[in-house]
C-alpha cells in the first residue's frame, strides 16, 4: 500500500512538473498579452519533433539548446504574420485564430515527419538508474526533467521580477500605450513574449518527447489538460501554474492507481451496497474526467483561479 502511494507520489510529481513546463509558457503569454494560445501544445509537439531531427545530427544536448530557439522563432513568425493582424478583431478572434492554428500545425507535422511515431530517444548519458525504491528503478532522466522544471521556474521568475526586460513586459500588459509613449516598441515586445512562451513550450517538448512517445497525437493529448492547469492556477500566475500542475498531476496519477470502486471499499468494510450504481464504477475510470470537472468548478465559483489576480 505504501509502495503504491510512494510510486503515485513520485509519478504524480513528475507528471505535474512536466505539465508545469508546458503551462508556464501558456500562462505567461496570457498574462502578458491577454491571448489564450490554443496552439500551445502544438508548439510543444514541434519542440519534440525538432529535437528529434536535430539530435540526429547534433545529439541530444545540441537539440536541447537549438530546438527551443527554433520553436521560439516559429512562434515569433506566427505572431508577426498572423496574430498581430487579429488583435484588432478582439479576443474571440484571437481564440479562433489560435484554434485554427492547431489544425494547421498538427497537420504540418504529419506532412513533414509522417504519421508514425519517430524514434527520439533519451541520451545515453542520462540513461541510467538514479536509485532503486521498493524494487523499482528510478531513471536518471526523470531526475533531469525535475531539475529542468525547477530551473525553468526560477529562471522565468527572475526574468520577470528582477530584470528590466521583465519589468517592461509586465508594464506593457496593463499600460501598453504608456509604455509605447515612453519609447518602447510594444508590438515587438508582444512578439518577443509570444516567442518566449512558445519557446518554453518547445523546451518542454524536447524534454518530454523522448520520455513519452513523439507522435502526431501528442499535442491533442496534452493540450486540453494544460488549459485546465492554467485556468485552475489562475491565468497569468506563474506560481498558480506550479501549484495547479502539481495538483492535477497528483490527482490524475492517484486516480488511475485506484483500481477499485467505492462499492468495493464499502464491501471490504462489510457493507454490501451500490455495486450496480455509480458507486460501483471503478475509481480509476474517473481519472480522465477529474481535471475537467475541477476546471469547470473553478470557473463557476472562482473564475480567477487559485492564485490569479483578475478574471480573464
Amino acid at each position, binding site marked *: 500500500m505504501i509502495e503504491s502511494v510512494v510510486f503515485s507520489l513520485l509519478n504524480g510529481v513528475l507528471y505535474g512538473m512536466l505539465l508545469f513546463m508546458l503551462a508556464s509558457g501558456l500562462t505567461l503569454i496570457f498574462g502578458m498579452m491577454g491571448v*489564450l494560445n490554443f496552439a500551445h501544445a502544438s508548439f510543444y509537439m514541434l519542440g519534440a519533433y525538432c529535437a528529434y531531427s536535430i539530435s540526429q545530427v547534433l545529439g541530444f544536448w545540441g537539440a536541447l539548446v537549438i530546438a527551443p530557439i527554433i520553436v521560439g522563432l516559429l512562434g515569433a513568425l506566427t505572431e508577426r504574420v498572423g496574430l498581430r493582424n487579429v488583435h484588432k478583431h478582439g479576443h474571440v478572434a484571437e481564440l479562433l485564430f489560435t*484554434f485554427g492554428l492547431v489544425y494547421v500545425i498538427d497537420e504540418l507535422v*504529419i506532412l513533414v515527419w509522417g504519421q508514425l511515431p519517430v524514434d527520439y530517444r533519451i541520451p545515453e548519458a542520462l540513461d541510467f538508474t538514479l536509485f532503486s525504491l521498493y524494487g523499482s528503478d528510478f531513471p536518471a532522466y526523470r531526475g533531469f526533467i525535475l531539475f529542468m522544471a525547477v530551473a525553468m521556474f526560477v529562471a522565468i521568475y527572475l526574468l520577470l521580477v528582477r530584470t528590466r526586460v521583465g519589468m517592461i513586459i509586465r508594464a506593457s500588459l496593463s499600460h501598453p500605450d504608456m509604455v509605447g509613449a515612453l519609447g518602447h516598441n510594444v508590438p515587438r515586445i508582444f512578439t518577443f513574449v509570444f516567442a518566449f512562451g512558445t519557446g518554453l513550450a518547445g523546451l518542454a517538448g524536447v524534454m518530454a518527447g523522448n520520455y513519452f512517445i513523439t507522435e502526431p497525437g501528442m499535442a491533442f493529448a496534452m493540450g486540453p489538460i494544460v488549459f485546465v492547469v492554467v*485556468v485552475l492556477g489562475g491565468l497569468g500566475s506563474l506560481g498558480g501554474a506550479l501549484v495547479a500542475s502539481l495538483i492535477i498531476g497528483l490527482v490524475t496519477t492517484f486516480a488511475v492507481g485506484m483500481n477499485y470502486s467505492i462499492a468495493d471499499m464499502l464491501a471490504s468494510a462489510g457493507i454490501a451496497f451500490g455495486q450496480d450504481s455509480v458507486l460501483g464504477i471503478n475509481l480509476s475510470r474517473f481519472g480522465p*474526467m477529474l481535471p475537467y470537472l475541477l476546471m469547470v468548478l473553478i470557473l463557476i465559483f472562482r473564475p480567477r483561479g487559485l492564485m490569479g489576480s483578475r478574471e480573464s
Partner: protein
Amino acid sequence: MSTSNFPGGAVVRHAAVWIAAIVVIIVMPYVFTSSSSVSMMSQMGVFIVFALSYNMLLGEAGMLSFGHAVYFGLGGFLTLHAIRAVNDDVWSFPLELMPLVGGLGGLAFGVIFGSVSTRRAGVTFAMITLGIGAMVEASANMFTNFFGGESGVSGNRVTEVTLLPFSYGPQIEVYYLIGAWTIVAALLMFLLTKTPLGRMANAVRDNPERAQFVGYSTTIARFIQFALSGFFAGIAGGLFAILFEIMTAPNVGLIQSGAVLLMTFIGGLGVFFGPIIGAVLVTYMQIALSGFSEGWILYFGLLFVLMVMYVPNGIAGVIVSHFAPWQAGLAHRFAVPYLLAIVPALLALAGLVTMIEMGYHLSLAYDPSRPIELFGMEITATSVAAWVVAVALFAAGLVALRWVAGRIRQRWGEVNQAMDAQRAKQ
C-alpha cells in the same frame, strides 16, 4: 465596409425562398442519383441543422462555445437508445418522430449545463464549455452502458413503427426524412430570430449594458438561448443517429465541437443562411477531398485561419456585403478587379496544393519516388525541379494577389464613397 443584416434578411423572409428550398430538397436526388451522393446530401442536412443550432449561440448571441457537440452527441445517443428500445419491443414510437427524443435530450442537458455555463461570459464562458465538453467525453469511459464503450451504441432504424408507409431502410427514404426535418428545424430557428428572445439575444450580443437598461437580464436571455440551441443540436444528433445507426464517444467530444465551429464560421456568422452554406461546403469538401488528398484537414485549417484573419464575416458575409452595391447599381465596378484576382489566386493555389500534396506523398507514401497524379499531370515528389516550380508558382501567385488585393480595397473605397454620396442626396 459595414455589413447590415438587413438585405440578407429580406431574401430569407420571402416565403418563395423557403418554397424553393423545399423544391431543391425534393429534386436533388433526381439530379445526383448515385447512392454516395444521396448519402452525402443526407449528411449535409444533418450538419445544416447542427450548424444553424450552433449559430444561435455564436452568431446570434455572441457566445463562443467549444462544447456544442455535447448536446448533439447526447441527443444522438438518446435517440439510438430509444430506437433500440423499439427494436427490442420495449417501447413503441414512430421513427419519423425519433429526432424529437434527441431534441428533448439536448434541451434537458442544455438546461443543466447551461445553468452553470451562462453565468459567465466571453472567454470564461468559452473555457467552461470546453471543460464540460472534455468532461462529458472523458466520462464516456465511466458510463459504458450509456456510451457503449469502445464500439459505441448501434441500432436498427428499420423499427417497423412508422407514421408513413416507409421502412426507412433505403438511403433515399432516410434522405427525405432528414430533408423534412431540416426544413422544419431551419424554419423554426429562423422564426426564433424574429421573437422577443431572438431580438434580445442579438441585443445582448451587441451591447449587454444597453440590453440591461431596457430591462433584460443578460444571463437569463443567454441561458434560454443556450437551452434552445441545445434542443436543435439534439435534433441534429437524432438525425445523425438515424442516418448512421451508430454513435460513439467522439461524437460528444472536442473534435466534433471543433468541426461545427469551423463550418459555421466559414459559412458566415452574421447572416441566417451563413451556416447553411458552411455546412454544405464543409461536408462536401470533407467527403470529396478526403478521397483525394491526405491533407484535407490542412486545407481546412489554412482556410479557417485565413478567413479569421481576412474574411471574418464568412462566405455569407462576403455575399451580403455586395447587396448594397448591387441595389445602388454599382456592383459592376467590381467586375474587373475580381476577374483580375482569378489568375493569381489560381496560381498561388496550384503552387500551394502541389507543395502540400508532394509533402504528404514524401512522408506518407510507401514508395515516395512513385509519381503522383495532380491536375491531370504526373509529378514526381522527389524531383527538385518539381519543388522549385511549385514554390515559384506559389510565390508569384502571392505577389500578384497582394497587388490585386490592393486594387480591390481601393475599388471598395470608391464604391463606398459613391454610396455615401447617393445616400446624402436622399
